[in-house]
């Protein structure tokens, strides 16, 4: 199964986003948070990202969702030398839920990224 990692400036935001996504989409596919700096502050950590990616990597690829700013830069730097890990340009919470649902069906890497990115276009009031 494709794995998911949520990288955020805030450790707790990443954890809560994972919990909500699992609550809705179930735990068929692996998902892991990577939030905050190494010393628990606000920011991002490539070491935490590495650990999270390793935790969800089952050999079918990993999709990373970023909240903003340095999370994007850290994730981009991380994937420089990885072809099996891709970034989704998606809303953090909504993209995570869609991606996790799709990953849980056994979909491939491209389909999971597409699901995350389509979340951008789905209205909540219609």
């Amino acid at each position, binding site marked *: 199964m494709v794995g998911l990692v949520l990288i955020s400036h805030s450790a707790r935001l990443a954890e809560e986003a994972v919990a909500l996504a699992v609550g809705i989409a179930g735990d068929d596919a692996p998902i892991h948070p990577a939030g905050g*700096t*190494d010393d628990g*502050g*606000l*920011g*991002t*950590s*490539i*070491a935490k990202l590495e650990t999270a990616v390793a935790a969800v990597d089952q050999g079918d690829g990993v999709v990373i969702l970023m909240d903003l*700013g*340095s999370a994007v*830069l*850290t994730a*981009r*730097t991380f994937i420089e030398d990885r072809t099996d890990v891709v970034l989704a340009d998606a809303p953090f919470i909504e993209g995570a839920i869609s991606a996790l649902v799709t990953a849980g069906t056994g979909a491939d890497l491209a389909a999971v990224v597409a699901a995350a990115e389509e979340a951008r276009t789905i209205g909540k009031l219609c």
Partner: protein
Amino acid sequence: MDTEFFLRWIAAVTDRVRAERDHLTDLDRAIGDADHGSNLDRGFTAVEEALAATPPATPADVLVTTGTTLIRKVGGASGPLYGTMFRTLGRSIGDAPDVTADALADAFSDALAAIAKLGSAAEGDKTMIDALAPAVPAMRTSFDAAAQAALDGAEATTNLRARKGRASYLGERSVGHQDPGATSMALMIDALRAV
């Protein structure tokens, strides 16, 4: 320029970052989250330790170790950005034991391209690029010219509206403050002069 030259440069940058730490953080307080000075201080302190632990064999070693350490230790947007700059400088230089002024100028040009790509940013976005971009052509002339161009570029960010990084969320309210990353970039290029 040999390995020693680059070690002295990084040591000078480390000293300058420490000396300017609070100033950089103050600039980041105005249009960011007040951590740019401490981010870089943490990063370059780790660089100092890494370079001491495994003495580098080539100029590229110095630069790649510096970059990789910054990526791992800074924690803010400037970490991946400066990390990419130093790693690109190292990779561009290759394994020559002695680097010509031309090769270094080429490497800085590559580093500018790499930062711009990573940050999806261009000159005028009120970022570190506004100090680096004018320094790149000036480096063909001299370090003095490059340093002056970088310092001028950093100063000119004051009147710009931020379009990348946290400061971009402030919109018009980012105008009137010098960009912290442009300021630290100018400091790094300025440090080349005294090496």
